[in-house]
């Protein structure tokens, strides 16, 4: 935090004599003209790529009006898709919060052969294209799967796909915090007679909580918009395995761009809400550092 430029001490007395004109760098009070130019360029790029397209979605939905949006969202098949997306994303976030923390713990505090490889593999879901993830899960848990279980076209398959693509979030947000956390505090607690679980719950968990919540929140935001990994393995059966993004896709294919926009706006509002909440959680975590 302290690394943000501090302008006060800049032209030190000795250097001024050596140089005729004092540099006009970093004056806090006035925004420099070149800064405005830079901000303008950044906003131009963001607008062309992100903001104008999203505005088009919002515009299309707004043209419908709130009543019509509600009609679209509460139509039975769309509502079923939205509910499935919400519930499965919540479940995925919860499972990641627990399992992700365990994995992070094992990667930081445990030693076993091959740990470096396991640690590297955690990033694989970020690097592997989602459609490939879906195909691989289908290969293992589908009709000709290795374990004799066939999860294809079930809600379990939806969960499986979402768990795959969101695996890294909690692990990668908890890991650095756990590394920095002083082990001595924990050891002191257990030396003083606290059981290891009590030591964990009372000493470690509170410091990890912001990281866990933020990782789980990111998992949720990712899960609720996920498309590629689910599309092959879920079968996209309305009322059963169709999630909201797949429903949007179906609406686009059938030419109903207004309906697609309405559902898209609902999804956007949910994930923006989560991201804003996470910004607050991060501030809370930073406060914990001080």
């Amino acid at each position, binding site marked *: 935090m302290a690394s943000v430029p501090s302008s006060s001490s800049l032209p030190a007395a000795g250097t001024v004599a050596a140089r005729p004109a004092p540099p006009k760098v970093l004056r806090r009070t006035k925004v420099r003209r070149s800064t405005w130019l830079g901000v303008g360029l950044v906003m131009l790029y963001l607008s062309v790529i992100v903001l104008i*397209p999203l505005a088009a979605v919002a515009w299309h939905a707004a043209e419908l009006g709130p009543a019509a949006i509600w009609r679209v969202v509460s139509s039975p098949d769309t509502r079923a898709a939205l509910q499935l997306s919400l519930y499965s994303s919540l479940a995925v976030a919860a499972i990641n919060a627990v399992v992700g923390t365990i994995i992070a713990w094992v990667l930081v505090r445990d030693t076993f052969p091959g740990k470096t490889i396991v640690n590297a593999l955690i990033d694989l879901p970020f690097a592997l294209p989602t459609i490939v993830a879906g195909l691989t899960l289908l290969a293992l848990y589908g009709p000709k799967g290795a374990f004799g279980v066939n999860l294809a076209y079930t809600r379990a398959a939806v969960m499986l796909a979402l768990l795959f693509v969101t695996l890294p979030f909690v692990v990668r947000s908890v890991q650095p915090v756990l590394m920095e956390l002083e082990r001595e505090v924990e050891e002191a607690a257990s030396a003083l007679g606290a059981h290891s679980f009590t030591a964990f719950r009372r000493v470690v968990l509170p410091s990890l909580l912001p990281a866990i919540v933020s990782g789980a929140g990111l998992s949720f935001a990712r899960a609720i918009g996920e498309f590629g990994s689910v599309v092959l393995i879920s079968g996209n059966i309305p009322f059963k395995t169709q999630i909201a993004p797949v429903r949007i896709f179906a609406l686009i294919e059938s030419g109903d761009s207004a309906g697609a926009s309405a559902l898209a706006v609902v999804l956007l509002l949910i994930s923006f809400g989560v991201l804003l909440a996470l910004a607050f959680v991060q501030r809370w975590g930073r406060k914990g550092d001080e």
Partner: protein
Amino acid sequence: MSSGKDGSVVPDAKGSRAGRYGLRTVALVYLALILVLPVGMVFYRTFENGLQPVLQALGDPETLHALYLTVVIAAVAVPLNTVFGVFCALLMVRRTFPGKSFLSVLIDVPFAVSPVVVGLSLILVYGRTGWLGGWLAENGIRVIFAWPSMVLATIFVSLPFVVREVIPVLQEIGVEQDQAAHTLGATPWQTFWRITLPAIRGGVTYGVILTTARALGEFGAVSIVSGKIAGQTSTLTVHVEERFQQFDLVGAYTSSLVLAVIALVIVLAMTLLRPKEAGS
């Protein structure tokens, strides 16, 4: 750090050893079931019927075109987002302006948008009935169902990575060296190339790797705007789905294998170049 009672440590250590093995088992079994076995399965299934069908699928003109298109799209999207990312990060860290935290939120927006919504949004702007659709049609410019929209979709989804990786590095290095260069009479341009860029090289590289991974692997947004014209607007990910729908499993697995190998290389690069966890 109070004098430890040695007696109580021994049984505790034994108890926590059992706990440790338990946790290790949970973590490794979960990773095996969710991650390692499925990915291993791609390799197995691809070569299930020997090498010949795989080579045939690899030599298929449609597969080759899909690979070519994937690389071309990434070759446009990654440099653009890299230049934007470095520029934007410099602005955010080194300049003061009102609305900076708002801009910071805006940059993260692509992370919160479903790929399907990205595709929809581009159709609503550039599609036949979209905002610019009429003008584009009059001038004979195809955006939707052609590569320009696929490039736009790819830039959209991979936009935040470089910015997000470079900002913390810039914050850490501070401005002293740049100021020294300035004092010694370097132009801003010289300072950037000789001082700033070498100092943030690690963050930029890591951001570029993440951007590339996302650009090569994007499916949802690209598939919606591509129109999925085989041999013309199929990227490798779209090609995987298309082959699967045609019941050409060898074709689908072969293209998947190419993508999986790329992913493994990217993971290796990430591991080697991971920025050291910001220690104090």
